[in-house]
């Protein structure tokens, strides 16, 4: 070389990674992934100490009965959060589905099914709209929440209706050894985990949350990814509504409004992040269970219902504070 070469000095990256630092990062990641499970176990143990009779088939069934719709809603929310969006209409959507199930699905099964499939279609369209018009998902879904509630009130102006018999029977299946709710939650967590975290397609979906620009440059259609995730979220929303109305047997236009926030809290409790495609289906289901059990625990320690919501919030803050502490461990030591 005849030219003077500007010399650059950069750290030889590969051989110098200190083993202890990667070890610490791994440990912090492990702790973070284990945190939802640990909080759930701590909660369960506390409940069992307070109320040993809860430690039975019957007790678990009673406590976790309402956990399944919440777990399904949490999974739906998690799919939306995967692409860095947030669905504020989920609770009203689930109420709407419950109303459809308690009226149309019962009286005209075919029409009811069509409406439910249409709901999933609406979710897919929402995904397309949000992507192609670059609209903030929060605003669009906030608007949609009023539409869903409106639709639900039109269908069922006063609480009532009746869930189809087959639906009521389905959600009350008695499974051997473990209560049905637990079986459903386990199947749900494992199935979504396999799909989203292990399959080739799931990787593409999560990649779109991690670095959408790079995905577009690599030739993937972000539109298709968003439509898929929104449609899936709609599908889980429908399942959640059906399960809920099966348990309650009748519906009410406002019955699931709090699911919006519960589902978001569940995803975050389960180790998910609002941005960056970092989600965990198993964690999300555990998070949903934790939220439900937190409610039961508060009843067991006889906290008056006036204070329960506040106390539930306090439990949430406690777990999230722990998360933040663990995240701090994860910051690479200098």
């Amino acid at each position, binding site marked *: *070389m*005849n*030219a*003077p*070469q*500007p*010399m*650059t*000095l*950069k*750290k*030889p*990256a*590969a*051989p110098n*990674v200190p083993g202890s630092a*990667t070890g610490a*990062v791994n440990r912090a*990641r492990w702790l973070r992934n284990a945190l939802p499970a640990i909080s759930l176990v701590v909660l369960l143990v506390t409940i069992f100490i307070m109320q040993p009779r809860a430690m039975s088939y019957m007790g678990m069934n009673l406590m976790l009965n309402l956990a399944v719709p919440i777990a399904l809603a949490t999974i739906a929310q998690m799919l939306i959060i995967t692409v860095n969006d947030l669905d504020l209409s989920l609770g009203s959507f689930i109420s709407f589905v419950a109303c459809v199930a308690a009226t149309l699905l019962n009286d005209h099964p075919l029409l009811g099914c069509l409406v439910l499939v249409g709901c999933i279609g609406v979710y897919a369209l929402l995904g397309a709209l949000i992507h192609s018009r670059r609209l903030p998902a929060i605003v669009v879904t906030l608007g949609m929440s009023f539409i869903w509630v409106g639709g639900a009130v039109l269908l069922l102006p006063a609480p009532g209706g009746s869930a189809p018999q087959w639906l009521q029977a389905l959600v009350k299946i008695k499974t051997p050894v473990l209560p049905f709710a637990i079986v459903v939650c386990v199947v749900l967590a494992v199935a979504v985990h396999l799909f989203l975290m*292990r399959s*080739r397609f799931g*990787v*593409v979906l*999560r*990649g779109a*949350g*991690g*670095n959408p*620009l*790079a*995905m*577009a*440059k*690599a*030739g*993937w259609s972000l539109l298709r990814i968003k439509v898929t995730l929104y449609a899936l979220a709609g599908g889980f929303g429908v399942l959640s509504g059906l399960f809920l109305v099966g348990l309650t047997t009748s519906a009410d236009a406002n019955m699931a409004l709090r699911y919006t926030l519960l589902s978001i809290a569940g995803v975050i409790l389960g180790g998910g992040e609002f941005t*960056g*495609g*970092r989600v965990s289906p198993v964690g999300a289901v555990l998070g949903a269970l934790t939220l439900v059990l937190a409610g039961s625990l508060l009843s067991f320690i006889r906290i008056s219902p006036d204070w329960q919501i506040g106390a539930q919030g306090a439990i949430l803050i406690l777990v999230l504070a722990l998360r933040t502490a663990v995240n701090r461990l994860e910051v*690479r030591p*200098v």
Partner: protein
Amino acid sequence: MTVTQAALVDLKGVGKRFGAVRALNDVDLMFHSGECLGLIGHNGAGKSTLMHILAGTLGADSGAVLMGGADVRSGYSVQVARQHGIRCVFQELSLCPNLTVAENTRLMCPGLRGFGWRCKAGALIVATLDSIFPGHGISPGDVVADLPIGQRQMVEIARAFTCVDEHLALVILDEPTSSLDARVAEQLLRHVRRYVESGGCVVLISHILGEMLATCDRIAVMSDGCVVEVRAASAFTHASLVECMGTVSKPQDQAQAFISRRNGQAPVVEQLPARQQNGQMVAAWPGEIVGLAGLAGQGQSQLLVQLLRERVASGQRVAMVAGDRQTDGVFSLWSIAENITISSLAALRHGVLIDPQAEQAMAAKWQQRMNIRTQDMNNPILSLSGGNQQKALFARALASDSELILMDDPMRGVDVGTKREVYAIIKEEAARGRTFIWYSTELEELNHCDHIYVFRNGQAVADMPRNELSEAQILRSSFQEEVA
């Protein structure tokens, strides 16, 4: 290379406009198999735009993109480019940080399918990494967010060279070495030569002239959206390349006598690096430019952050110019003017509100001073080219009333012309009594410093004034352990 050999890709009269700005103007360029084509030019000369067009992420407005004799310009897309075996490693990293190395590989290789695709992807990427960067230390299960930037770049490069049931004809490497250290960069350039000799085509973009001259067969020089010169690399020299780019290559004015500013006064800064064991302080006196040298990631940035935190906590004025401008630098949704004035809002106040006229005036002043190339300072910051964004960040720091300015390797991926302009302004500001602490990974830049500390393992291991500065001395201090 025979003359009769058909070109792999032939760009004819390609043009591209972004609004009123003409990014590319009638570009003619041929790409042949078995050849490494270098592409060089200012930031904003249109290199990246041209490569985006070749990779299919941007469509050309005019001209023809000939592949195998047929014009594929209309309907050209990333998919079409990939069918023709064109892959691109873009300047900005395009890995998904939330996925593992193996999963990222899968995103690029649709051919990976079936049960156990994860293992196959992992084995593939590791094999490619092994062949390009022996001793890389990356495992396929690593989550990309946990990898340091150098390793991410290695994964990204290896991924472009990995293919399953696909044909690979042309790889575009846009500034691949800017976040790699010298040893790894050399491994990469050796691999480029091997790949080219086996019949592939590589387009290499780099600001490091030495590696361009040593690696490329042919070099195309771009300036203002045009290809101004295409020659065999052997027909270029360091000086003639710089000349073609349109900046004047001046020999360093080393003659300027070195006057130490370390006289009776008290230093502005006296800081002990967090991991320093022998009590060696890093100090800076008023009007001094202090350089932090050594290999990348040896604790220089940490020292700057430590200084910044302590100064902010104790209420002293300080400004920092970030090197990683996308993460630490720009407010990407704000205008250029807002990005510049954010550090000086206290001075722009009119009562309790910000005076918009004063804000505009400050922006206009710094546009002129830094020569920021834009028609309107109210344009969004991202409308600027990388080098000009960096100038805006310098303007932000210099426009503030801080006496101490910290610079965290701010010249990464900035072209030679812009660098010279900024060096001159830094010297001017230092002469007015401002103090600069400048972490740089480029040895050339240390020539502008009055005093240099060399870092190794988080500690300042050498301390030398400019008149004692020598490349050998810095290298010796940076590498001591490895050599012994």
